């Protein structure tokens, strides 16, 4: 696919995602019923959970593309990896800011060592490393390779981090245990959540494609200016 088509597809998806997100916001503010025990603050859940899901999807894609890049050495795979990783950072940041906001109101403390929150925080740092490595090598190609290694190790480390933070939690039970998403989620809440998951995923894919075509354009510009200077 040409960069132009990807750009178009990305714009379309991002627009659809934004409109869809608007619908989700309307639903979560006006349509869905208020959760009984936690009250109004629980509505942040419709942003928090999909952001978490999207960041995991994005980081997973970044690791996958990184692995393929090391294997095939196609520049486009590296561009896809960095685009996905950036999306992951954005959505992980949303997840990490909405979590404490909710926590403060729901159980009076900003941070709880809730396993998924901890895992996301660690992932955020792993991908911070990814970007630091990328940008601090003399030779850009080396940075790409090194960053790919970080992404792959990070992704394969996730199961271990996940199991260990859950196990830690079982050793040190938190003072307040409220399960935000029990299996008995009422129908309208589930609908809103699923709608929101859809909106976030589509929005991410749109942003991902936009970011990817931007990288393509950037490298094309690089090549052209190099040719022009010779």
């Amino acid at each position, binding site marked *: 696919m040409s960069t132009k088509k990807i750009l178009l597809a990305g714009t379309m998806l991002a627009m659809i995602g934004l409109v869809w997100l608007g619908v989700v916001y309307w639903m979560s503010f006006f349509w869905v019923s208020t959760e009984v025990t936690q009250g109004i603050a629980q509505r942040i859940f419709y942003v928090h959970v999909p952001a978490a899901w999207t960041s995991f999807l994005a980081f997973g894609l970044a690791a996958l593309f990184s692995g393929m890049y*090391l294997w095939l050495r196609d520049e486009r795979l590296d561009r896809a990896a960095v685009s996905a990783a950036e999306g992951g950072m954005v959505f992980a940041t949303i997840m990490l800011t909405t979590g404490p906001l909710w926590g403060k109101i729901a159980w009076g403390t900003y941070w709880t060592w809730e396993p998924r929150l901890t895992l996301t925080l660690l992932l955020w*740092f792993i991908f911070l490393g990814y970007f630091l490595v990328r940008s601090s090598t003399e030779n850009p190609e080396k940075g790409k390779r090194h960053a790919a*290694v970080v992404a792959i*190790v990070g992704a394969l480390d996730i199961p271990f*981090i996940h199991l*260990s933070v859950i196990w830690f939690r079982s050793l040190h039970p938190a003072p307040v245990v409220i399960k935000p998403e029990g299996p008995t989620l009422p129908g309208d809440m589930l609908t809103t959540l699923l709608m929101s998951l859809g909106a976030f995923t589509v929005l991410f894919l749109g942003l991902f494609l936009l970011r990817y075509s931007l990288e393509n354009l950037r490298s094309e510009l690089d090549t052209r200016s190099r040719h022009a200077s010779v």
Partner: protein
Amino acid sequence: MRNYLKQIRTILWKDLLVEFRTRERLIAMGAFVVLVAILFNYATDWARVSPEDIASGLVWMTIMFAGLLGVGRTFHLEAEDGAFQGILMSPVPKDAIFIAKALANFVFLYIMALLVVGVFIFFFGLEVGGSFGMLTLVIALGVLAFVALGTLFTAVSTGTRMGDTLLPVLIFPLLAPVVIYGTGATSQFLAGRPVTEAEGSIRMLAAFALTAFFLGSWLFRFVVED
């Protein structure tokens, strides 16, 4: 295969020989460990806490920081006269180089980690009792995991402008499971609980160490390729 093992042994032996001639890393790490313990003494109100309560966390954090200090020097020795180029241009598979360097790091860091335990026994009267054997096993597994990721990411950070300052950012989030299971098992030992209770943690540590070693020997080639 015999040749492969011989090459690993050659590089490992060289690293040990050079280290035991210069003693740079062992002295630096050893001094660090003892000094940290001295500072811990003044940073802790021993009238209120007993060593057994907090020792496992302190032991593991000291191992992490001292390990960082030691593992960060992995390639300095090689860089002096471009010697690492010489190794890379010799017919040694990259995974063999990784395994040799990681094992050399393991030797240094394990000595240092045992010193950490010794220092806590000596300074703070930590009661290790009958669990000493298991404790050394858990520490060995944790150090193995540490050197696997540490060696790989030292190779990464040495190639960047940020150098060693980047290393903790890269490996600390990845090493969270090691700290969690390591301290978990250690505090169970120190509390005098039966060994079977820590079995799960030991298994997870072993699985993590193996995975990290496998990943390191597979990915190292992409890091050192020019």
